[in-house]
């Protein structure tokens, strides 16, 4: 039963959503399932929070390597959850001044807004910025002209790196008009629009066919691996 019911929900919901795109009569059924999906997606946040707490509490109780990070994760999670749920520092909505919790967490001056601006934004930006350092180190150690493919990749990388900055204009801006297509800033766009587009379209068509095939297998109940439990 634990596998049959979810499978039938998926089959009925999947067919309803698919038919709603092609059959006008089935449009309302598609809407109903889209509504249900939104509710399920919201519930998934609760499951996600539960899973996060469980995983880190287990790590803590076993004193696994790096358990200190779990303390920080759980602490941040609980504090942010508390602030968000109880709307700390949020002023009531001007339309409902009597209702203490009617204001929005997004409003300026709220504790959640403060966490967002002064903790989350700098922390996530820093994490992303670190990429530049690791990419530089990797470029020095691993980007080698070992064979023809690697040489092609290197040349493309040079064109893109230079063409996407003012260096391209300085280096090749003097090219005459009839050779303007070879200017680095133009050539980098040509690579993106021709070679990249062709390659990406091929990949996308392949993925689309794969998704359609997998989708049909799920809709007809042939593929049940998504139900978990090890039985395909």
């Amino acid at each position, binding site marked *: 039963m634990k596998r049959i019911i979810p499978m039938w929900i998926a089959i009925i919901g999947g067919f309803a*959503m698919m038919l709603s*795109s092609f059959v006008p009569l089935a*449009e309302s059924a*598609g*809407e109903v399932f*889209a*509504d249900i*999906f*939104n509710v399920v*997606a*919201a519930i*998934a*946040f609760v499951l996600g929070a539960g899973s996060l707490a469980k995983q880190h509490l287990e790590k803590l109780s076993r004193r696994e390597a790096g358990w200190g990070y779990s303390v920080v994760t759980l602490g941040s999670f609980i504090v942010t959850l508390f602030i968000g749920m109880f709307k700390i520092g949020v002023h009531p*909505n001007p*339309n*409902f001044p009597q209702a203490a919790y009617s*204001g*929005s967490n*997004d*409003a*300026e001056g709220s504790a959640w*807004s403060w966490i*967002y601006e002064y903790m*989350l*934004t700098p922390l*996530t*930006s820093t*994490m*992303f910025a670190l990429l*530049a*350092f690791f*990419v*530089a*180190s990797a*470029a*020095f*150690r691993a*980007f*080698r*002209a*070992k064979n023809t493919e690697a040489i092609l990749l*290197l040349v493309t*990388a*040079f064109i893109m*790196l*230079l063409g*996407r*900055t*003012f*260096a391209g*204009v300085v280096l090749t801006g003097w090219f005459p008009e009839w050779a303007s297509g070879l200017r680095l*800033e133009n050539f980098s*766009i040509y690579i*993106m*629009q021709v070679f*990249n*587009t062709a390659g*990406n*379209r091929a990949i*996308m068509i392949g993925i689309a066919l794969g998704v359609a095939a997998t989708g049909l297998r799920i809709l007809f109940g042939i593929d049940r691996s998504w139900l978990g439990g090890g039985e395909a």
Partner: protein
Amino acid sequence: MSAANFNNTNASALPWFERLDRIDRRWIFLLMFLAVSGPILWIGVTGKTLPEAPTLAARAVFQEIDQLPARSLVLISIDFDPTSAGELQPMATSLVRQCAAKNLRMVFIALWPLGSQVAQQTIQEVIRDDYPALKEGDDFVNMGFQAGNEAVMKLLLTDFAKAFPKDSRGEAASNIPILNSVKSVTDFPLLISVSAGYPGSKEWVQYVISAHNEKMNFVSGCTGVNAPQLYPYFPQQIAGLLGAIKGAAEYESMVNSSLAVEGVVTPPKYSQAQRRMGPQLVAHLFMVGLIIVGNINFFARKRRGAA
């Protein structure tokens, strides 16, 4: 960072290419830091930015917004969070600025949990600070975040208010004047998505635009990593595309030129992307240098039979 950083204690006896190969990566990190921080400081002090020549894709974004009649509705989907704000916030800021200057009515939505906060910050920075005459609810509204990814997009096609029943202030969609004429997403002549990945511009094309692009136009701003995946949709499904900070800088320069007032200096918040092109230039040149040095080293080792 001395001899202890080399695996071989007798490092000075090694040939130069061996020593170069074993260089502590913290030296590279330090050089990258200098390559980025130098131009940031220089631009910060002088205020000078590099000139930008807008490409076709960036010009198309500007024109799509520019050609809309005043009071047209624009749906702005903020599909990113602070992680990608370095690349995407300048785009969002300039897009909202052009829309506000054109007196377009803006409806903000978010398909990423933190997108609502990003939208709120952009509204504060651009609309509340520089276009105070625009009224929330009449000229712009932030409908906040809705979970569900593609399902939200599908729902937007049939019932906008069902997908976003309340705005970020808690006001019901039925009470918001700007949404009076909105039944579905196709009632917006222009959809703008500033996206860092999934769900984002690609899903907007697949679930909304592909089937309805005769009713509405779509422009997108995306990160450098996502740009190659979106170019195949330009210009048929995506009418205009801003790829990475370069695209943002091109678009920003167009918006700044169009709104320039003689004798008035453009505030730094409206030239963030152009200011970031300086550090990007030096960092890219440094990367090219590293790749060349790495390859000289590689061939030197190969010649001596060490590779």
